[in-house]
């Protein structure tokens, strides 16, 4: 194992930052932030995207050197100049995305993660050590299967075990439950809390989910625009107050009411759809679903059950192997003429990556749907820039896109503004079918509320909306019906009103 640092051992350390500040150019990412995490506690770090949570933990982990401020471990100031220092002091982090080697087994991953892994490994000896180690742990994972064959919950457990194996007693978790089912999330967070309360570890968790914070955490800190704006004991303040601290004075649009939408029969029908993933296996295998006009059907599921392949197949980014898509009872193929004829629009996740050309201007990006039609196109081939800019100016006004000009490259806009520019392009026309995938991923509260309201408005106007999301709360809030996708097909279908989270979670897990 690593050389025993002063703080290592079976004892939870306390951690404290004093006046931590960090600037990137003109941007003050962190301003004078002081937090206290007592030994053996489970601390929640709350804040919107860009509030400074990641910057703070990266300063603690040694990825960034803070401009100012101290880091105290067990009350003593410690210098952390790089991630190695943090590791030696017993501070470890679980990232949002897995850092395991998929082709290696759990045992191999654990041994390989050690800084002092020998050139020749005596597996018999290592196995014995691992077994003894696991006996002391509250949860186990299969040691001999390749990690790629483990479920997401087991992988997350292995990530945590890896830190404990390396004798890290202060764990930082960055949205650890985003890849888990609600059941797996509750199990893992519960185990971590119990370990913390037994004084074995101290945990700081970055989270967006108030439900988890209230159920498992002891204290919380709220950051906004790089500064600490609140904190205290969980339970002392209401969820509403916590949310208010996070948002500050930003205006959040009230969620649009669900009205009785004009129903005119099935609009989108997917029958027996098959599509392969990049490895050539059927990721979508026999998917059937009907979406009525004026209805939002939410597709829930643990990521990797074919949702992204389904959206890609519907939007022309992935070949359809077998099956039929009908819009208004007519055959639909994902080509440009059909998108226009059937009025099919889409809001993909991470719009900068999936729906824009980052190096093209805002006006050009807003013209993707219209550039080959009058008035932007003349004589069928000539591109007139002025009508394109006029259209963009109109959309920028109506959708409140903050951009210096129509000619700015869209990659220079903030995430929320890129999202609004894409919304403007896709929702400003007459929409019959809307395909939405994780529309709020990585956005701040105000943008999230805005986008959800717009999706609801389209439904109320009579559009058929297919909503694929990894955020179960989003699905529960917006959907008229909920379909759980597991193993490439619909495993469970239920009306949105009165849907049971536990039942949904069970079908998500594949039971």
């Amino acid at each position: 194992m690593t050389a025993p640092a002063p703080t290592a051992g079976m004892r939870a350390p306390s951690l404290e930052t004093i006046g931590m500040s960090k600037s990137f150019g003109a941007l003050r990412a962190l301003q004078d932030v002081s937090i206290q995490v007592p030994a053996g506690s489970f601390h929640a770090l709350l804040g919107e995207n860009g509030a400074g949570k990641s910057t703070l933990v990266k300063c603690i982990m040694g990825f960034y050197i803070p401009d100012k401020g101290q880091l105290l471990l067990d009350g003593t100031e410690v210098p952390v100049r790089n991630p190695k220092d943090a590791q030696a002091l017993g501070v470890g982090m679980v990232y949002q995305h897995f850092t395991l080697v998929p082709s290696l087994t759990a045992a191999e991953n654990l041994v390989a993660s050690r800084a002092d892994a020998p050139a020749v490994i005596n597996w018999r000896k290592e196995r014995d050590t691992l077994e003894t180690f696991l006996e002391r742990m509250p949860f186990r994972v299969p040691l001999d299967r390749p990690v790629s064959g483990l479920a997401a919950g087991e992988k997350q457990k292995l990530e945590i075990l890896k830190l404990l194996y390396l004798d890290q007693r202060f764990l930082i978790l960055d949205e650890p439950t985003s890849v888990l089912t609600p059941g797996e999330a509750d199990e893992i967070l519960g185990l971590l809390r119990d370990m913390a309360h037994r004084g074995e570890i101290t945990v700081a968790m970055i989270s967006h989910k108030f439900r988890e914070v209230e159920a498992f955490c002891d204290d919380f800190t709220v950051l906004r625009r790089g500064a600490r704006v609140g904190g205290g004991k969980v339970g002392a303040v209401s969820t509403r107050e916590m949310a208010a601290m996070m948002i500050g004075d930003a205006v959040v649009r009230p969620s649009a009411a669900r009205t009785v939408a004009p129903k005119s029969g099935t609009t989108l029908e997917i029958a027996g759809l098959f599509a392969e993933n990049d490895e050539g296996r059927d990721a979508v295998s026999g998917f059937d679903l009907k979406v009525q006009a004026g209805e939002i059907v939410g597709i829930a599921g643990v990521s990797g059950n074919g949702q992204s392949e389904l959206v890609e197949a519907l939007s022309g980014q992935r070949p359809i192997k077998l099956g039929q898509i009908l819009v208004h009872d007519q055959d639909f193929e994902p080509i440009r003429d059909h998108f226009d004829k059937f009025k099919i629009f889409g809001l993909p996740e991470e719009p900068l990556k999936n729906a824009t050309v980052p190096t093209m201007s805002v006006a050009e990006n807003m013209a993707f749907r219209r550039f080959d039609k009058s008035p932007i196109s003349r004589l069928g081939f000539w591109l007139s820039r002025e009508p394109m800019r006029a259209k963009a100016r109109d959309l920028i006004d109506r959708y409140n896109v903050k951009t210096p000009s129509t000619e700015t490259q869209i990659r220079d806009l903030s995430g929320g503004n890129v999202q609004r520019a894409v919304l403007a392009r896709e929702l400003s026309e007459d929409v019959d079918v809307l395909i939405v995938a994780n529309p709020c991923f990585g956005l701040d509260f105000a943008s999230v509320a805005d986008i959800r309201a717009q999706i609801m408005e389209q439904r109320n106007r009579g559009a058929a909306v297919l909503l694929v999301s990894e955020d179960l709360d989003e699905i529960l809030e917006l959907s008229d019906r909920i379909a759980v996708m597991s193993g490439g097909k619909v495993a469970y279908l239920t009306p949105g009103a009165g849907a049971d989270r536990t039942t949904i979670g069970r079908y998500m897990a594949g039971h």
Partner: protein
Amino acid sequence: MSSGAPAASGLAAAGTPPSAPSARYDLGVRLRANSEYVAIPVFALLMAAALFAVFLLAIGKSPIEFVNYVWRGGFGTAFSLQNTLQRSSPLILTALAVAIPARIGLIMIGGEGALVLGGFAAAAIAVPMVGVVPPIVTIPVMVAAAVLVGAMWVGIAGYLRYARGVNETISSLLLTYIGIAIMNFFVEGVMRDASNPNKPSTKPIGDAYMVGYIPGTEVHWGFPVGVLLSVALYILMTRTTFGFAARVTGGNFRAALAQGLPVGRLIVGCAMIAGGCAGLAGYFEVAAIQGRANASLAAGYGFTGILVSFLARHNPVVIIPVAIMFGGLVASGGLIQRRMGMPDATVLVLQGLIFVVLLTSETLYGRFAIFRAGDAKERT
């Protein structure tokens, strides 16, 4: 620029955007952003020149003398300048063969093969027509043959890329060697001119069928054609729906698919335009310089064109001055060889250095705060 828009928007089209502040911002941002695309390549050129100077000093030659001879051999006299323009013509055309696919996100380096096959096709179709059909008919047929064959040749690489996912850089390069081999097969075999004992060639097409020079100069028509084609392709890529769709496809393939754009046709189309340009270069080599097709067609213009396009950042209009610069370098090779006692491959050393330094400089974009508008990223 005049778009003939209705009166209301006509004002804006005339260059007066709606509000003055945004216009100023625009100009400032654009100037800063674009200056990066000038400063970094110029810096790369200077770096390469410095490295080459070290190379010259190492073999005991004077860099100053070298510059002097490049100037005299490439630009200094009316004769050398015309020679330079002459040599820049195939460079413009083969550079376009790299620049157009680059706009749709493909790095295609098969210009040399399309040039060779295009030139060969022009000669092959002309030989039976010589003396039978008048030049006024034969010349357009030769041009069409060269462009078509070139377009098909690079089009193959484009199709393989789209339909089978074959790496277009490798396939276009390998197709070049196949193309040269095909020409050699015919020129040394069934199409060999038996009356010419020296170099295996096709029969000459004869002076009457040559394309000739711009009156009063010794620059053949390939140069003005190349310049016009550069401008035309610039307009195609920036001001037409085809160019727009191609830029979307090149900028973000997934977004292009989600918009239902016909990406296959766009990719093959751009590859064919590229091949057509290189084929046209081959036509001019045959009909303005060589008068017949033989191994001299594979003179490396297609490869220098890659360098020209990269240095011009794949901008068709910028290709023109860059091609002239390299044309001068090529033109002065003979003088340098004679006067400085160095092999003419010396110029290739310089070209290679420029290419390596240029590719390395690609990593510098976005690293200098001076080129960035600090407040462009507005956080909300």
